[in-house]
């Protein structure tokens, strides 16, 4: 039995689909952010798997995943700052309540 490329792509597909499900159904902003992280993570895993199996001699997938992790960290920090600000203004973090701007 060989571990070929498909074996690694199937968990990644399931991770991505779970992220889509959570993104559509959840109503809390932080829960939506968690689903987003799942989708990002599965995309990162795909980069690395394609790098290893299709181009074993190079490391471009790894470099791209490193940049992706850095940008995901920045994006999460900003999103959490915004969520805390919304909580201060409205009192909860439910997306149904956030339907007006400042004025």
């Amino acid at each position, binding site marked *: 039995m060989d571990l070929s490329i498909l074996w690694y792509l199937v968990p990644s597909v399931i991770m991505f689909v779970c992220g889509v*499900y959570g993104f559509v159904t959840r109503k*809390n902003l*932080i829960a939506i952010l968690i689903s987003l992280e799942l989708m990002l*993570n599965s995309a990162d895993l795909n980069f690395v798997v394609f790098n*290893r199996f299709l181009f074993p001699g190079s490391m471009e997938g790894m470099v791209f995943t490193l940049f992706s992790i850095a940008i995901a960290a920045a994006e999460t920090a900003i999103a959490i700052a915004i969520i805390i600000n919304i909580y201060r203004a409205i009192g909860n973090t439910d997306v149904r309540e956030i339907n007006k701007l400042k004025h």
Partner: protein
Amino acid sequence: MDSVANIILYFVIAIATVVFSFLAVTSRKLLRSATYLLFVLICTAIFYFQLGFQFLGAVQIAVYAGGIMVLFVFSIVLTHKPDQKNAPLESHRRFLGTMCAVAGTVVLLFALFKMPLLNGLSLTECLNSATPITMHDIGTAFTGTNRFQYLLPFEAVSVLLLACIIGGVVVARKR
């Protein structure tokens, strides 16, 4: 031919990834959901280690499992009362989400198993044919300007992180 230990490790990690990512999006308590996400991130890091990218696995654990999860737990504790459960899902939203998930799974798996591009190499063959990535390679790849070297994106990311720090402070400060 892959070793038995590799195959067993693969199955443990793959099943853990699937189960925990399902639990992370269906759990009613947000703090549990964040903990399941942490387990998914650690499983992904073990996948990176198994594929031979040790530096990437270490970065994944340090940045994702260490840094981002602390931010998540911090913000959950700041914006939720203890033992607060989320409201149950509306039925049409749950239907829509299930439809999206099932359609996505079918389309992606169909595309995956029909793709002619994929070769049938096993993990051991790929690991044997590749030269191991040393820290020296990673350092020259990030600080050079030749082909396959990435100094400009590296600097751009550092400016982005600075902007992100300033933006986070400005957005979240008290008025």
